Protein backbone atom coordinates (compact mmCIF):
# COMPACT_ATOMS: atom_id res chain seq x y z
CA UNK A 1 0.00 0.00 0.00
CA UNK A 2 1.24 3.47 -0.85
CA UNK A 3 -0.19 6.48 0.93
CA UNK A 4 0.65 10.06 0.06
CA UNK A 5 -0.21 12.67 2.64
CA UNK A 6 -0.20 16.28 1.48
CA UNK A 7 2.91 15.74 -0.59
CA UNK A 8 4.13 19.07 -1.92
CA UNK A 9 7.07 20.18 -4.02
CA UNK A 10 7.99 23.78 -4.62
CA UNK A 11 10.86 24.48 -7.00
CA UNK A 12 12.74 27.73 -6.61
CA UNK A 13 13.44 29.04 -10.07
CA UNK A 14 14.86 32.38 -11.21
CA UNK A 15 11.30 33.34 -12.14
CA UNK A 16 10.06 32.64 -8.64
CA UNK A 17 8.64 29.65 -6.83
CA UNK A 18 6.92 27.02 -8.96
CA UNK A 19 4.57 24.59 -7.27
CA UNK A 20 5.15 21.31 -9.07
CA UNK A 21 3.00 19.23 -6.76
CA UNK A 22 0.38 20.80 -4.55
CA UNK A 23 -0.75 18.87 -1.47
CA UNK A 24 -1.16 15.53 -3.16
CA UNK A 25 -3.02 13.07 -0.96
CA UNK A 26 -3.97 9.68 -2.25
CA UNK A 27 -3.82 6.00 -1.43
CA UNK A 28 -2.97 3.03 -3.64
CA UNK A 29 -4.26 -0.22 -2.14
CA UNK A 30 -1.84 -3.17 -2.02
CA UNK A 31 -1.62 -5.15 -5.24
CA UNK A 32 -3.09 -2.48 -7.49
CA UNK A 33 -1.70 -0.46 -10.36
CA UNK A 34 -2.29 3.27 -10.04
CA UNK A 35 -1.65 5.34 -13.13
CA UNK A 36 -0.59 8.95 -12.68
CA UNK A 37 -1.97 10.57 -15.79
CA UNK A 38 -1.78 14.06 -17.20
CA UNK A 39 -0.16 16.36 -19.74
CA UNK A 40 3.54 17.15 -19.40
CA UNK A 41 4.41 19.49 -16.56
CA UNK A 42 1.34 18.46 -14.56
CA UNK A 43 3.34 17.14 -11.60
CA UNK A 44 2.81 13.43 -12.11
CA UNK A 45 6.51 12.59 -12.47
CA UNK A 46 7.43 14.90 -9.61
CA UNK A 47 4.93 13.11 -7.43
CA UNK A 48 6.34 9.71 -8.39
CA UNK A 49 9.92 10.77 -7.81
CA UNK A 50 9.14 12.16 -4.39
CA UNK A 51 8.22 8.66 -3.29
CA UNK A 52 11.79 7.39 -3.75
CA UNK A 53 13.28 10.82 -3.02
CA UNK A 54 14.88 11.32 -6.43
CA UNK A 55 13.10 14.61 -5.78
CA UNK A 56 12.97 15.73 -2.18
CA UNK A 57 9.49 16.71 -1.03
CA UNK A 58 9.11 20.24 0.26
CA UNK A 59 6.53 18.99 2.69
CA UNK A 60 4.18 16.09 3.22
CA UNK A 61 4.70 12.44 3.92
CA UNK A 62 4.87 9.12 2.12
CA UNK A 63 3.70 5.96 3.84
CA UNK A 64 4.50 2.54 2.49
CA UNK A 65 2.54 -0.32 4.03
CA UNK A 66 1.58 2.09 6.78
CA UNK A 67 5.18 3.00 7.61
CA UNK A 68 6.29 6.62 7.42
CA UNK A 69 9.23 6.57 5.01
CA UNK A 70 10.71 9.86 6.19
CA UNK A 71 12.42 7.93 8.98
CA UNK A 72 14.14 5.54 6.56
CA UNK A 73 17.62 5.86 5.10
CA UNK A 74 17.37 6.93 1.43
CA UNK A 75 19.40 4.00 0.06
CA UNK A 76 17.48 1.56 2.22
CA UNK A 77 14.17 2.99 1.05
CA UNK A 78 15.11 2.85 -2.62
CA UNK A 79 16.27 -0.75 -2.47
CA UNK A 80 12.76 -1.67 -1.41
CA UNK A 81 11.14 0.20 -4.28
CA UNK A 82 11.48 -1.20 -7.78
CA UNK A 83 12.23 1.64 -10.18
CA UNK A 84 11.76 1.60 -13.94
CA UNK A 85 12.40 4.69 -16.08
CA UNK A 86 11.52 5.57 -19.64
CA UNK A 87 15.17 5.79 -20.73
CA UNK A 88 15.54 2.24 -19.36
CA UNK A 89 18.94 3.08 -17.86
CA UNK A 90 20.51 -0.36 -18.08
CA UNK A 91 24.18 -0.13 -17.15
CA UNK A 92 26.03 -0.63 -20.44
CA UNK A 93 29.21 -1.72 -18.65
CA UNK A 94 27.44 -4.67 -17.08
CA UNK A 95 26.13 -7.88 -18.63
CA UNK A 96 22.40 -8.58 -18.55
CA UNK A 97 22.99 -10.87 -15.58
CA UNK A 98 24.90 -8.17 -13.69
CA UNK A 99 22.19 -5.65 -14.50
CA UNK A 100 19.40 -7.87 -13.21
CA UNK A 101 21.26 -8.85 -10.07
CA UNK A 102 22.49 -5.38 -9.18
CA UNK A 103 19.98 -4.81 -6.38
CA UNK A 104 20.30 -8.31 -4.88
CA UNK A 105 24.08 -7.79 -4.88
CA UNK A 106 23.68 -4.42 -3.16
CA UNK A 107 21.54 -6.20 -0.59
CA UNK A 108 24.32 -8.74 -0.06
CA UNK A 109 22.68 -11.91 -1.37
CA UNK A 110 25.07 -14.82 -1.83
CA UNK A 111 26.18 -15.70 -5.34
CA UNK A 112 24.20 -18.90 -5.82
CA UNK A 113 21.01 -17.14 -4.77
CA UNK A 114 21.32 -14.12 -7.04
CA UNK A 115 22.44 -16.24 -10.01
CA UNK A 116 19.38 -18.42 -9.58
CA UNK A 117 17.27 -15.29 -9.28
CA UNK A 118 18.60 -13.94 -12.57
CA UNK A 119 17.47 -17.11 -14.38
CA UNK A 120 14.12 -16.96 -12.65
CA UNK A 121 13.63 -13.35 -13.78
CA UNK A 122 14.57 -14.21 -17.36
CA UNK A 123 11.95 -16.96 -17.36
CA UNK A 124 9.41 -14.47 -16.06
CA UNK A 125 10.06 -11.98 -18.86
CA UNK A 126 10.21 -14.78 -21.44
CA UNK A 127 13.80 -14.32 -22.57
CA UNK A 128 16.11 -17.31 -22.93
CA UNK A 129 18.62 -17.15 -20.01
CA UNK A 130 21.48 -18.93 -21.79
CA UNK A 131 21.18 -16.71 -24.84
CA UNK A 132 20.97 -13.39 -23.00
CA UNK A 133 22.54 -13.43 -19.52
CA UNK A 134 26.12 -12.99 -20.74
CA UNK A 135 25.31 -10.36 -23.34
CA UNK A 136 25.51 -6.59 -22.96
CA UNK A 137 22.58 -4.15 -23.14
CA UNK A 138 23.80 -2.62 -26.42
CA UNK A 139 23.30 -6.00 -28.08
CA UNK A 140 19.57 -6.04 -27.30
CA UNK A 141 16.59 -4.39 -28.96
CA UNK A 142 14.73 -1.59 -27.17
CA UNK A 143 11.87 -3.87 -26.22
CA UNK A 144 14.21 -6.50 -24.84
CA UNK A 145 16.12 -3.86 -22.92
CA UNK A 146 12.99 -2.58 -21.24
CA UNK A 147 11.99 -6.14 -20.30
CA UNK A 148 15.40 -6.39 -18.61
CA UNK A 149 14.74 -3.00 -17.00
CA UNK A 150 11.54 -4.38 -15.50
CA UNK A 151 13.34 -7.57 -14.43
CA UNK A 152 16.02 -5.49 -12.72
CA UNK A 153 13.38 -3.58 -10.78
CA UNK A 154 11.67 -6.80 -9.74
CA UNK A 155 14.80 -8.81 -8.93
CA UNK A 156 14.88 -8.17 -5.20
CA UNK A 157 11.12 -8.70 -5.05
CA UNK A 158 10.19 -5.24 -3.72
CA UNK A 159 6.57 -4.90 -2.61
CA UNK A 160 6.24 -1.57 -4.40
CA UNK A 161 7.19 -0.57 -7.95
CA UNK A 162 7.58 2.94 -9.32
CA UNK A 163 7.44 3.18 -13.09
CA UNK A 164 8.08 6.42 -14.95
CA UNK A 165 6.58 6.08 -18.44
CA UNK A 166 8.26 2.70 -18.66
CA UNK A 167 6.98 1.77 -22.11
CA UNK A 168 6.99 5.28 -23.58
CA UNK A 169 10.07 4.84 -25.74
CA UNK A 170 9.03 1.54 -27.29
CA UNK A 171 7.33 1.26 -30.67
CA UNK A 172 3.54 0.78 -30.50
CA UNK A 173 3.50 -2.89 -31.50
CA UNK A 174 6.15 -3.94 -29.00
CA UNK A 175 4.59 -1.67 -26.41
CA UNK A 176 1.28 -3.52 -26.58
CA UNK A 177 3.10 -6.85 -26.25
CA UNK A 178 5.11 -5.69 -23.24
CA UNK A 179 2.02 -4.20 -21.61
CA UNK A 180 0.22 -7.53 -21.95
CA UNK A 181 3.21 -9.44 -20.60
CA UNK A 182 3.48 -7.05 -17.71
CA UNK A 183 -0.20 -7.37 -16.83
CA UNK A 184 0.13 -11.14 -16.89
CA UNK A 185 3.12 -10.93 -14.54
CA UNK A 186 1.25 -8.56 -12.29
CA UNK A 187 -1.62 -11.03 -11.95
CA UNK A 188 0.79 -13.37 -10.19
CA UNK A 189 3.04 -10.86 -8.48
CA UNK A 190 0.39 -8.48 -7.12
CA UNK A 191 2.83 -5.61 -6.61
CA UNK A 192 1.62 -2.21 -5.57
CA UNK A 193 2.53 -0.04 -8.53
CA UNK A 194 2.66 3.68 -9.24
CA UNK A 195 2.89 4.18 -12.97
CA UNK A 196 3.32 7.50 -14.74
CA UNK A 197 1.82 7.82 -18.19
CA UNK A 198 0.57 10.54 -20.51
CA UNK A 199 -1.26 8.05 -22.68
CA UNK A 200 -4.92 7.71 -21.82
CA UNK A 201 -5.22 4.37 -23.64
CA UNK A 202 -2.29 2.94 -21.70
CA UNK A 203 -3.84 4.21 -18.48
CA UNK A 204 -7.16 2.53 -19.18
CA UNK A 205 -5.46 -0.69 -20.17
CA UNK A 206 -2.99 -0.93 -17.30
CA UNK A 207 -4.62 0.89 -14.43
CA UNK A 208 -6.78 -0.37 -11.59
CA UNK A 209 -7.05 3.28 -10.68
CA UNK A 210 -6.19 6.46 -12.50
CA UNK A 211 -5.10 9.71 -10.91
CA UNK A 212 -5.49 12.67 -13.28
CA UNK A 213 -3.12 15.57 -12.63
CA UNK A 214 -3.24 19.14 -13.79
CA UNK A 215 -0.84 21.94 -12.91
CA UNK A 216 0.44 20.20 -9.82
CA UNK A 217 -2.95 19.22 -8.48
CA UNK A 218 -4.67 15.88 -8.30
CA UNK A 219 -7.91 16.53 -10.17
CA UNK A 220 -9.62 13.17 -10.08
CA UNK A 221 -8.74 9.77 -8.68
CA UNK A 222 -11.00 6.95 -9.76
CA UNK A 223 -11.21 3.58 -11.47
CA UNK A 224 -10.90 3.76 -15.26
CA UNK A 225 -14.58 2.96 -15.71
CA UNK A 226 -15.71 5.63 -13.25
CA UNK A 227 -13.31 8.13 -14.77
CA UNK A 228 -14.64 7.57 -18.28
CA UNK A 229 -18.25 7.47 -17.16
CA UNK A 230 -18.07 10.51 -14.92
CA UNK A 231 -15.20 12.90 -15.59
CA UNK A 232 -15.15 15.45 -12.83
CA UNK A 233 -14.70 18.59 -14.91
CA UNK A 234 -14.14 19.93 -18.39
CA UNK A 235 -10.37 19.43 -18.19
CA UNK A 236 -10.63 15.74 -17.39
CA UNK A 237 -13.30 15.38 -20.03
CA UNK A 238 -11.14 16.97 -22.72
CA UNK A 239 -8.09 15.00 -21.63
CA UNK A 240 -10.01 11.74 -21.89
CA UNK A 241 -11.09 12.71 -25.39
CA UNK A 242 -14.36 13.05 -27.26
CA UNK A 243 -14.49 9.32 -27.75
CA UNK A 244 -14.33 8.40 -24.09
CA UNK A 245 -17.55 6.38 -24.30
CA UNK A 246 -15.83 4.27 -26.94
CA UNK A 247 -12.77 3.87 -24.71
CA UNK A 248 -15.01 2.20 -22.16
CA UNK A 249 -15.51 -0.56 -24.69
CA UNK A 250 -12.01 -1.69 -23.72
CA UNK A 251 -13.01 -2.13 -20.13
CA UNK A 252 -16.07 -4.34 -20.54
CA UNK A 253 -15.78 -8.02 -21.39
CA UNK A 254 -18.27 -9.80 -23.63
CA UNK A 255 -18.92 -12.10 -20.65
CA UNK A 256 -20.58 -9.24 -18.78
CA UNK A 257 -23.32 -8.51 -21.27
CA UNK A 258 -23.76 -11.76 -23.17
CA UNK A 259 -27.26 -13.25 -23.18
CA UNK A 260 -27.28 -17.01 -23.18
CA UNK A 261 -30.61 -17.00 -24.97
CA UNK A 262 -29.89 -17.73 -28.60
CA UNK A 263 -32.03 -19.58 -31.09
CA UNK A 264 -30.17 -22.01 -33.31
CA UNK A 265 -30.93 -24.63 -35.89
CA UNK A 266 -29.03 -27.77 -36.73
CA UNK A 267 -27.95 -28.88 -40.20
CA UNK A 268 -30.66 -31.53 -40.28
CA UNK A 269 -33.55 -29.10 -39.72
CA UNK A 270 -35.68 -28.02 -42.65
CA UNK A 271 -35.70 -24.45 -43.83
CA UNK A 272 -39.33 -24.29 -42.73
CA UNK A 273 -38.27 -24.97 -39.14
CA UNK A 274 -35.61 -22.33 -39.51
CA UNK A 275 -38.12 -19.74 -40.69
CA UNK A 276 -40.42 -20.59 -37.79
CA UNK A 277 -37.57 -20.18 -35.31
CA UNK A 278 -36.53 -16.89 -36.84
CA UNK A 279 -40.06 -15.61 -36.28
CA UNK A 280 -40.33 -17.16 -32.81
CA UNK A 281 -37.16 -15.52 -31.57
CA UNK A 282 -38.01 -12.31 -33.35
CA UNK A 283 -34.82 -12.20 -35.39
CA UNK A 284 -34.76 -9.79 -38.29
CA UNK A 285 -32.51 -11.38 -40.82
CA UNK A 286 -31.03 -14.72 -39.98
CA UNK A 287 -30.52 -17.56 -37.52
CA UNK A 288 -27.35 -19.40 -36.51
CA UNK A 289 -26.79 -23.00 -37.48
CA UNK A 290 -24.64 -25.09 -35.09
CA UNK A 291 -23.06 -28.47 -35.76
CA UNK A 292 -23.39 -31.55 -33.53
CA UNK A 293 -20.50 -30.34 -31.30
CA UNK A 294 -22.33 -27.09 -30.66
CA UNK A 295 -19.93 -25.01 -32.76
CA UNK A 296 -21.21 -22.31 -35.14
CA UNK A 297 -21.43 -23.80 -38.62
CA UNK A 298 -23.30 -21.21 -40.66
CA UNK A 299 -26.22 -18.84 -40.81
CA UNK A 300 -29.57 -19.27 -42.51
CA UNK A 301 -30.92 -16.10 -44.04
CA UNK A 302 -34.59 -15.22 -43.61
CA UNK A 303 -35.14 -14.66 -47.32
CA UNK A 304 -33.59 -18.02 -48.17
CA UNK A 305 -35.70 -19.79 -45.56
CA UNK A 306 -38.87 -18.17 -46.87
CA UNK A 307 -38.37 -18.78 -50.55
CA UNK A 308 -36.59 -22.11 -50.68
CA UNK A 309 -37.43 -25.64 -49.61
CA UNK A 310 -34.89 -28.11 -48.31
CA UNK A 311 -32.55 -28.64 -45.42
CA UNK A 312 -30.46 -26.09 -43.62
CA UNK A 313 -27.24 -28.01 -44.37
CA UNK A 314 -27.65 -27.19 -48.07
CA UNK A 315 -28.57 -23.52 -47.81
CA UNK A 316 -26.39 -21.82 -45.27
CA UNK A 317 -23.91 -18.96 -45.53
CA UNK A 318 -20.61 -18.66 -43.69
CA UNK A 319 -20.66 -17.20 -40.16
CA UNK A 320 -19.18 -13.72 -40.56
CA UNK A 321 -17.58 -13.54 -37.10
CA UNK A 322 -17.73 -14.83 -33.54
CA UNK A 323 -16.40 -13.41 -30.26
CA UNK A 324 -15.03 -15.17 -27.19
CA UNK A 325 -16.34 -14.53 -23.69
CA UNK A 326 -13.09 -12.86 -22.60
CA UNK A 327 -12.82 -10.55 -25.58
CA UNK A 328 -13.60 -6.94 -24.84
CA UNK A 329 -16.46 -4.98 -26.34
CA UNK A 330 -14.08 -3.01 -28.51
CA UNK A 331 -13.34 -6.15 -30.50
CA UNK A 332 -17.03 -7.05 -30.61
CA UNK A 333 -17.95 -3.58 -31.87
CA UNK A 334 -15.20 -3.65 -34.42
CA UNK A 335 -16.41 -6.99 -35.78
CA UNK A 336 -19.97 -5.72 -35.98
CA UNK A 337 -18.90 -2.63 -37.91
CA UNK A 338 -16.62 -4.61 -40.20
CA UNK A 339 -19.34 -7.08 -41.17
CA UNK A 340 -22.30 -4.69 -41.00
CA UNK A 341 -24.20 -6.83 -38.50
CA UNK A 342 -25.98 -6.04 -35.25
CA UNK A 343 -25.36 -9.23 -33.33
CA UNK A 344 -22.56 -11.74 -32.85
CA UNK A 345 -22.59 -15.31 -31.61
CA UNK A 346 -20.38 -15.86 -28.56
CA UNK A 347 -18.30 -18.97 -28.13
CA UNK A 348 -16.69 -20.49 -25.02
CA UNK A 349 -13.12 -21.81 -24.72
CA UNK A 350 -13.99 -24.96 -26.69
CA UNK A 351 -15.55 -22.95 -29.49
CA UNK A 352 -19.13 -23.92 -28.59
CA UNK A 353 -21.90 -21.40 -29.00
CA UNK A 354 -22.90 -20.11 -25.59
CA UNK A 355 -24.94 -17.03 -26.31
CA UNK A 356 -25.02 -13.85 -28.31
CA UNK A 357 -24.17 -10.21 -27.98
CA UNK A 358 -26.20 -7.48 -29.66
CA UNK A 359 -25.44 -3.91 -30.51
CA UNK A 360 -28.44 -2.88 -28.42
CA UNK A 361 -27.08 -4.69 -25.37
CA UNK A 362 -23.73 -2.96 -25.77
CA UNK A 363 -25.09 0.54 -26.13
CA UNK A 364 -27.56 0.14 -23.30
CA UNK A 365 -24.87 -1.29 -20.99
CA UNK A 366 -22.52 1.62 -21.62
CA UNK A 367 -25.40 4.12 -21.60
CA UNK A 368 -26.90 2.81 -18.35
CA UNK A 369 -23.73 3.47 -16.35
CA UNK A 370 -23.17 6.70 -18.14
CA UNK A 371 -26.64 8.01 -17.33
CA UNK A 372 -26.51 6.73 -13.77
CA UNK A 373 -23.27 8.64 -13.16
CA UNK A 374 -24.27 11.82 -14.90
CA UNK A 375 -27.46 12.52 -12.97
CA UNK A 376 -30.78 13.56 -14.37
CA UNK A 377 -29.77 16.80 -16.01
CA UNK A 378 -27.72 14.99 -18.60
CA UNK A 379 -30.03 12.14 -19.57
CA UNK A 380 -30.84 12.23 -23.23
CA UNK A 381 -33.97 13.98 -24.37
CA UNK A 382 -36.95 11.55 -24.33
CA UNK A 383 -37.42 12.07 -28.02
CA UNK A 384 -33.96 10.68 -28.63
CA UNK A 385 -34.80 7.47 -26.84
CA UNK A 386 -36.26 4.60 -28.72
Amino acid at each position, binding site marked *: MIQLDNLTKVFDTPKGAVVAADHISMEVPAGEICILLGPSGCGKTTTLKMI*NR*IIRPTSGKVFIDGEDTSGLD*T*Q*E*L*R*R*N*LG*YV*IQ*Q*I*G*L*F*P*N*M*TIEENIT*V*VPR*LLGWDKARYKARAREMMAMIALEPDAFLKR*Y*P*SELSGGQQQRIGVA*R*ALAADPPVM*LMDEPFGAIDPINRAVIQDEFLKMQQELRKTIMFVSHDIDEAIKMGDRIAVFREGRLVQYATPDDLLAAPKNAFVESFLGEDRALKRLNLVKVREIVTDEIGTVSPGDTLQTALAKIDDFGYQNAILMVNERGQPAGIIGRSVARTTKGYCRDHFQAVPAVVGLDDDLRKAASLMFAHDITWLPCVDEEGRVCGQITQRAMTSHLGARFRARQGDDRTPHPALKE
Partner: protein
Amino acid sequence: MPIQTLKGALRALLLVAVFFAGVWSHASGVIDDFLWYLPDVRYLLGEHLWLTAVSGGLAIGFAVPLGIVLSRPTMAGVAESLMQVLNVGTTIPTLAVLALSMSFLGIGTVPAVFGLFVATLLPIARNTYAGLKGVNPALLEAAAGIGMSPLQRLVKVELPNALYVIFAGIRTALTINVGTVPLAFLIGAGGLGELIFTGIDLYEPVMMLAGAIPTALLAIVVDAVIATVAFLVVPRGVNPSRA
Protein backbone atom coordinates in the same frame (compact mmCIF):
# COMPACT_ATOMS: atom_id res chain seq x y z
CA MET B 1 40.80 -7.76 -58.33
CA PRO B 2 43.17 -5.21 -59.99
CA ILE B 3 43.32 -3.36 -56.65
CA GLN B 4 44.31 -6.60 -54.93
CA THR B 5 47.05 -7.15 -57.48
CA LEU B 6 48.24 -3.57 -57.10
CA LYS B 7 48.38 -3.95 -53.33
CA GLY B 8 50.36 -7.17 -53.67
CA ALA B 9 52.81 -5.51 -56.02
CA LEU B 10 53.28 -2.52 -53.70
CA ARG B 11 53.86 -4.84 -50.77
CA ALA B 12 56.52 -6.76 -52.71
CA LEU B 13 58.13 -3.48 -53.78
CA LEU B 14 58.21 -2.29 -50.18
CA LEU B 15 59.92 -5.49 -49.03
CA VAL B 16 62.53 -5.12 -51.76
CA ALA B 17 63.11 -1.48 -50.79
CA VAL B 18 63.52 -2.39 -47.12
CA PHE B 19 65.94 -5.11 -48.09
CA PHE B 20 68.08 -2.76 -50.19
CA ALA B 21 67.96 -0.08 -47.51
CA GLY B 22 69.32 -2.69 -45.14
CA VAL B 23 72.02 -3.71 -47.57
CA TRP B 24 72.98 -0.07 -48.18
CA SER B 25 73.07 0.87 -44.51
CA HIS B 26 75.20 -2.15 -43.73
CA ALA B 27 77.57 -1.38 -46.60
CA SER B 28 77.90 2.30 -45.70
CA GLY B 29 78.70 1.54 -42.09
CA VAL B 30 75.72 3.48 -40.64
CA ILE B 31 74.60 0.42 -38.70
CA ASP B 32 78.02 0.09 -37.09
CA ASP B 33 77.91 3.78 -36.16
CA PHE B 34 74.53 3.25 -34.57
CA LEU B 35 75.72 0.21 -32.72
CA TRP B 36 78.56 2.26 -31.35
CA TYR B 37 75.95 4.36 -29.52
CA LEU B 38 74.09 1.30 -28.25
CA PRO B 39 75.41 1.37 -24.65
CA ASP B 40 74.55 5.10 -24.46
CA VAL B 41 71.11 4.46 -25.89
CA ARG B 42 70.50 1.69 -23.36
CA TYR B 43 71.49 3.84 -20.41
CA LEU B 44 69.68 6.95 -21.58
CA LEU B 45 66.58 4.93 -22.52
CA GLY B 46 66.49 3.80 -18.89
CA GLU B 47 66.62 7.42 -17.72
CA HIS B 48 64.06 8.42 -20.30
CA LEU B 49 61.66 5.71 -19.20
CA TRP B 50 62.22 6.61 -15.57
CA LEU B 51 61.35 10.26 -16.22
CA THR B 52 58.25 9.27 -18.17
CA ALA B 53 57.15 6.74 -15.58
CA VAL B 54 57.59 9.04 -12.60
CA SER B 55 56.14 12.19 -14.14
CA GLY B 56 53.38 10.26 -15.95
CA GLY B 57 52.57 8.17 -12.89
CA LEU B 58 52.35 11.26 -10.70
CA ALA B 59 50.20 13.00 -13.32
CA ILE B 60 47.77 10.05 -13.52
CA GLY B 61 47.72 9.74 -9.75
CA PHE B 62 46.90 13.41 -9.40
CA ALA B 63 44.78 14.16 -12.48
CA VAL B 64 42.32 11.27 -12.28
CA PRO B 65 41.26 12.05 -8.70
CA LEU B 66 41.18 15.75 -9.65
CA GLY B 67 38.87 14.99 -12.57
CA ILE B 68 36.67 12.88 -10.30
CA VAL B 69 36.45 15.55 -7.64
CA LEU B 70 35.64 18.27 -10.18
CA SER B 71 32.90 16.15 -11.74
CA ARG B 72 31.01 15.79 -8.43
CA PRO B 73 27.75 17.75 -8.38
CA THR B 74 28.87 19.78 -5.36
CA MET B 75 31.81 21.11 -7.39
CA ALA B 76 29.68 22.15 -10.35
CA GLY B 77 30.12 25.83 -9.49
CA VAL B 78 33.91 25.93 -9.62
CA ALA B 79 34.66 23.00 -11.93
CA GLU B 80 34.37 24.79 -15.26
CA SER B 81 36.42 27.79 -14.19
CA LEU B 82 39.12 25.52 -12.76
CA MET B 83 39.16 23.59 -16.03
CA GLN B 84 39.70 26.88 -17.83
CA VAL B 85 42.68 27.62 -15.62
CA LEU B 86 44.14 24.22 -16.48
CA ASN B 87 43.42 24.86 -20.16
CA VAL B 88 45.36 28.08 -20.05
CA GLY B 89 48.10 26.11 -18.31
CA THR B 90 48.56 23.83 -21.31
CA THR B 91 48.88 26.67 -23.75
CA ILE B 92 52.21 27.48 -22.10
CA PRO B 93 54.86 25.66 -24.15
CA THR B 94 56.48 22.76 -22.33
CA LEU B 95 59.89 24.30 -22.83
CA ALA B 96 58.69 27.40 -20.98
CA VAL B 97 57.26 25.24 -18.20
CA LEU B 98 60.61 23.51 -17.87
CA ALA B 99 62.40 26.84 -17.83
CA LEU B 100 60.03 28.16 -15.18
CA SER B 101 60.36 25.09 -13.01
CA MET B 102 64.15 25.31 -13.37
CA SER B 103 64.10 28.87 -12.12
CA PHE B 104 62.27 27.73 -8.98
CA LEU B 105 63.68 24.25 -8.41
CA GLY B 106 67.14 24.53 -9.91
CA ILE B 107 68.52 22.01 -12.38
CA GLY B 108 68.37 18.23 -12.42
CA THR B 109 65.72 15.56 -12.18
CA VAL B 110 63.32 17.24 -9.75
CA PRO B 111 62.45 20.30 -11.86
CA ALA B 112 62.28 18.09 -14.97
CA VAL B 113 59.83 15.67 -13.36
CA PHE B 114 57.80 18.61 -12.09
CA GLY B 115 57.68 20.28 -15.50
CA LEU B 116 56.70 17.07 -17.24
CA PHE B 117 54.10 16.35 -14.56
CA VAL B 118 52.44 19.72 -15.15
CA ALA B 119 52.48 19.27 -18.92
CA THR B 120 50.96 15.77 -18.68
CA LEU B 121 48.34 16.69 -16.11
CA LEU B 122 45.75 18.44 -18.21
CA PRO B 123 44.78 15.94 -20.91
CA ILE B 124 44.18 13.37 -18.20
CA ALA B 125 42.21 15.67 -15.89
CA ARG B 126 40.22 17.07 -18.82
CA ASN B 127 39.28 13.61 -20.14
CA THR B 128 38.47 12.24 -16.70
CA TYR B 129 36.20 15.21 -16.06
CA ALA B 130 34.60 15.10 -19.51
CA GLY B 131 34.21 11.33 -19.41
CA LEU B 132 32.43 11.41 -16.06
CA LYS B 133 30.28 14.38 -17.03
CA GLY B 134 29.38 12.60 -20.26
CA VAL B 135 27.85 9.58 -18.53
CA ASN B 136 24.19 9.35 -19.54
CA PRO B 137 22.09 11.04 -16.81
CA ALA B 138 19.52 8.23 -17.17
CA LEU B 139 22.15 5.81 -15.86
CA LEU B 140 22.77 8.00 -12.84
CA GLU B 141 19.05 8.27 -12.16
CA ALA B 142 18.64 4.51 -12.50
CA ALA B 143 21.64 3.94 -10.23
CA ALA B 144 20.29 6.31 -7.62
CA GLY B 145 16.77 4.94 -7.99
CA ILE B 146 17.80 1.38 -7.24
CA GLY B 147 19.55 2.46 -4.07
CA MET B 148 23.26 2.90 -4.86
CA SER B 149 25.17 5.24 -2.58
CA PRO B 150 27.11 8.08 -4.27
CA LEU B 151 30.34 6.07 -3.93
CA GLN B 152 28.75 2.94 -5.40
CA ARG B 153 27.42 5.03 -8.27
CA LEU B 154 30.93 6.35 -8.96
CA VAL B 155 32.64 2.99 -8.77
CA LYS B 156 30.06 0.72 -10.36
CA VAL B 157 28.50 3.01 -12.93
CA GLU B 158 30.30 6.29 -13.61
CA LEU B 159 33.93 5.17 -13.75
CA PRO B 160 33.32 2.02 -15.85
CA ASN B 161 31.32 4.08 -18.32
CA ALA B 162 33.90 6.88 -18.46
CA LEU B 163 36.91 4.57 -18.50
CA TYR B 164 37.35 4.53 -22.26
CA VAL B 165 37.50 8.32 -22.41
CA ILE B 166 39.82 8.45 -19.39
CA PHE B 167 42.16 5.98 -21.05
CA ALA B 168 42.12 8.04 -24.23
CA GLY B 169 43.36 10.99 -22.13
CA ILE B 170 46.09 8.93 -20.49
CA ARG B 171 47.17 7.62 -23.88
CA THR B 172 47.48 11.08 -25.41
CA ALA B 173 49.18 12.50 -22.33
CA LEU B 174 51.80 9.77 -21.97
CA THR B 175 52.61 9.72 -25.68
CA ILE B 176 53.21 13.46 -25.55
CA ASN B 177 55.16 12.97 -22.34
CA VAL B 178 57.58 10.51 -24.01
CA GLY B 179 58.08 12.99 -26.83
CA THR B 180 58.68 15.85 -24.39
CA VAL B 181 61.18 14.11 -22.11
CA PRO B 182 64.12 14.94 -24.48
CA LEU B 183 63.62 18.61 -23.53
CA ALA B 184 64.37 17.64 -19.94
CA PHE B 185 68.00 17.21 -21.00
CA LEU B 186 68.14 20.99 -21.36
CA ILE B 187 67.71 21.40 -17.62
CA GLY B 188 70.08 18.60 -16.83
CA ALA B 189 67.82 15.59 -16.33
CA GLY B 190 69.29 13.24 -18.92
CA GLY B 191 67.24 10.99 -21.15
CA LEU B 192 67.52 10.44 -24.88
CA GLY B 193 67.54 14.20 -25.38
CA GLU B 194 71.23 14.01 -24.53
CA LEU B 195 71.96 12.24 -27.82
CA ILE B 196 69.52 14.36 -29.80
CA PHE B 197 70.68 17.79 -28.67
CA THR B 198 74.35 16.87 -28.55
CA GLY B 199 74.00 15.37 -32.04
CA ILE B 200 72.49 18.59 -33.29
CA ASP B 201 75.13 20.72 -31.63
CA LEU B 202 78.00 18.59 -32.96
CA TYR B 203 76.35 18.17 -36.34
CA GLU B 204 76.45 14.39 -35.89
CA PRO B 205 73.31 13.12 -37.65
CA VAL B 206 73.88 9.53 -36.60
CA MET B 207 74.17 10.52 -32.95
CA MET B 208 71.03 12.61 -33.22
CA LEU B 209 69.17 9.76 -34.87
CA ALA B 210 70.43 7.35 -32.21
CA GLY B 211 68.45 9.50 -29.79
CA ALA B 212 65.51 10.38 -32.01
CA ILE B 213 64.67 6.95 -33.37
CA PRO B 214 64.43 5.21 -29.96
CA THR B 215 62.35 8.17 -28.71
CA ALA B 216 59.93 7.76 -31.60
CA LEU B 217 59.79 3.99 -31.14
CA LEU B 218 59.26 4.42 -27.42
CA ALA B 219 56.31 6.75 -28.04
CA ILE B 220 54.74 4.19 -30.38
CA VAL B 221 55.31 1.37 -27.87
CA VAL B 222 53.86 3.38 -24.96
CA ASP B 223 50.83 4.22 -27.10
CA ALA B 224 50.34 0.57 -28.03
CA VAL B 225 50.79 -0.63 -24.44
CA ILE B 226 48.15 1.79 -23.12
CA ALA B 227 45.81 0.91 -25.96
CA THR B 228 46.18 -2.76 -25.02
CA VAL B 229 45.56 -2.05 -21.34
CA ALA B 230 42.45 -0.05 -22.26
CA PHE B 231 41.28 -2.88 -24.49
CA LEU B 232 41.59 -5.33 -21.62
CA VAL B 233 40.42 -3.15 -18.74
CA VAL B 234 37.42 -1.29 -20.21
CA PRO B 235 34.29 -3.48 -19.88
CA ARG B 236 33.23 -5.02 -23.18
CA GLY B 237 29.80 -3.39 -23.17
CA VAL B 238 31.28 0.12 -23.25
CA ASN B 239 34.43 -0.59 -25.22
CA PRO B 240 34.14 0.63 -28.82
CA SER B 241 37.25 -1.30 -29.83
CA ARG B 242 35.60 -4.54 -28.72
CA ALA B 243 32.13 -3.89 -30.09
